[in-house]
């Protein structure tokens, strides 16, 4: 499965995405919403990194900032050791084919006034100079790849079901033979039977084309199915990053433990004995995160030090990174 010594394709270091808050007549800058706050991780070639967390924790913002759909406040993102965030407009345009995105809402991510052929052909128009015939052949090839009937090429997005629309979105992302695809909750807007189809399609394409995914989701079971490694986000920060199996077997961070205890068990016997960790209170505002550890206001195992000093994100076991004071002593 995962070769931990594999080649790093994406290196994110110290990524920060702050959205300014302005107030008053003169739109004075009074603070920032820290949607993504100092996030660092690496994605190896051919693997799937799952990014999980609750609503509003900055998962999608993180994915978009990596592709520079937003202008991040600070940090560096390297794809194939070329910096995405420092690139000027032209260089960035040349780097675009390598990294693509599949969006959450397949309805909103397709232009209602373009036919399927035009939507899938758009990246080809922008980055290749294929003849009309070659372009059509490539469009048909992509439609075959994602399991769309060639007959659909002349139709418009509103004529499709959610799952088919997501296939169109995937075909568009594949058009330029990317290496890296950010899947921003690609299955959240689909119903369960279609979710499985789309996820299987993504896995199949990964095997066939050697793709690398950043799979953003709040569906822990689905991430367990598709991801090789999993990163857990809370309030704009990654608090735990580990290979899938150890993480699901023995979560280290108290937040991950609470999160995983909320996953329902299909076996009724096991479900009876499942003990949920119920967190108290609400997620603090990302505009005004608490002092010390971001999780200290809700953590069941909170200590004095948590309210004073921010824990560092470090390796506690080979390949397992946690940001928590509970594991700080063992490391130091």
């Amino acid at each position: 499965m995962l070769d931990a010594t594999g080649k790093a394709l994406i290196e994110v270091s110290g990524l920060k995405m702050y959205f300014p808050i302005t107030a008053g007549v003169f739109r004075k800058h009074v603070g920032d919403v820290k949607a993504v706050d100092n996030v660092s991780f690496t994605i190896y070639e051919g693997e799937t990194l799952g990014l999980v967390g609750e609503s509003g924790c900055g998962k999608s913002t993180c994915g978009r900032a990596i592709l520079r759909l937003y202008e991040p406040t600070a940090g560096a993102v390297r794809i194939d050791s070329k910096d995405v965030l420092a690139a000027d407009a032209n260089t960035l345009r040349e780097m675009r084919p390598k990294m693509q995105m599949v969006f959450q809402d397949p309805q909103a991510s397709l232009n209602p006034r373009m036919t399927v052929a035009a939507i899938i052909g758009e990246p080809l128009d922008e980055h290749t100079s294929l003849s009309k015939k070659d372009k059509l052949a490539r469009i048909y090839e992509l439609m075959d790849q994602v399991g769309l009937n060639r007959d659909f090429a002349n139709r418009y997005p509103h004529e499709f079901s959610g799952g088919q629309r997501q296939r169109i979105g995937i075909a568009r992302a594949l058009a330029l033979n990317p290496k890296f695809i950010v899947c921003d909750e690609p299955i959240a807007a689909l119903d369960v039977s279609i979710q499985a189809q789309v996820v299987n399609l993504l896995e199949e394409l990964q095997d066939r084309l050697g793709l690398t995914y950043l799979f953003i989701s709040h569906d822990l079971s689905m991430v367990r199915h598709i991801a090789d490694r999993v990163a857990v986000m809370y309030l704009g920060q990654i608090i735990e990053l580990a290979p899938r199996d150890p993480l699901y077997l023995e979560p280290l961070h108290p937040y991950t433990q609470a999160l995983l205890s909320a996953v329902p068990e299909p076996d009724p016997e096991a479900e009876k004995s499942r003990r949920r960790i119920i967190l108290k209170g609400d997620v603090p505002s990302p505009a005004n995160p608490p002092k010390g550890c971001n999780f200290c206001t809700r953590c069941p195992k909170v200590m004095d030090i948590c309210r004073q000093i921010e824990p560092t994100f470090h390796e506690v076991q080979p390949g397992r990174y946690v940001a928590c004071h509970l594991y700080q002593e063992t490391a130091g």
Partner: protein
Amino acid sequence: MTETEKAPAAAQTTGASLSYRPPRSQWWDVWDQFKTHKGALIGLTIFVLILATILIGPILWTIEPTYVDLRARNQGFSMEHPFGTDQLGRDILSRMMAGGKVSISVGMTAMALSILLGTTIGVLAGYFRRLEGPLMRLTDLFLALPLLPLLLLMVTLFRDPLSKSFGPESGIFLLIVSAIGATSWMQTARIVRGEVLGLKEREFVLAARSIGTPSRRMITRHVLPNVLSPIMVSATLGIASAIITESALSFLGLGFPPDFPTWGRLLFDAVDQMQLYPSRVILPGVAISLTVLSVNYIGDGLRDALDPRIRGR
């Protein structure tokens, strides 16, 4: 093989040939949908008829619109003068045809100019954040100007130099068209800007950015087709108001020269004697209304036909 078996087989072969049919031009779909809109078809027919009358009519009906026959003043409908004559004995049918040519060309050109200006400014203001402030303040400035005095000022200032360089008729035509165009783009600009602001946040625009589509193609490919509906509506309304503004200018004596017929001019010339000769008011009035109405219906049909979500229903 029986007849019943043949039919599905034939259907299948057409289905198979369909799958290899190259993506056809969107305009065929648009035309197919346009044909299903009854009002639009009737509007188109009426508009074509009006255009044909105006363009071909003068060749068949050879009385000069400016020919004064004082012995035949204020005549009613007859074979010699189907629509009668006015107080100077000029034939109203030929004046209507000549007037229609001017009114419709002024209406169309002024509308095109105002839509072009309004859409450009609206799209730029909506899409580029930096331009939004200056462009929208400019729009507000134009909205706040009293338009009629401004038009009068423009006409008095520029009439003579333009007449000199382009000839009296085309000079005045240019002046009136640009005056109307330059003072009626603001509504369009505001509507378009609002739409663009909403569109810009849609995910398909983000998707296009992740592909690396540059701004100008983003506008032509993703933004403009999606703001077509409001543009179409303001275009059809714009023709009507351009024709009416032109008649107001003519009425004030600042449009085309007095003997030069336009529909608005005919209307206002006839207002004095409305009680005695109501048909002289009704005829140009009906012509203006029919044109405006048919253009509105055409616009309505086009807007529906251009929206793939409505198409095919």
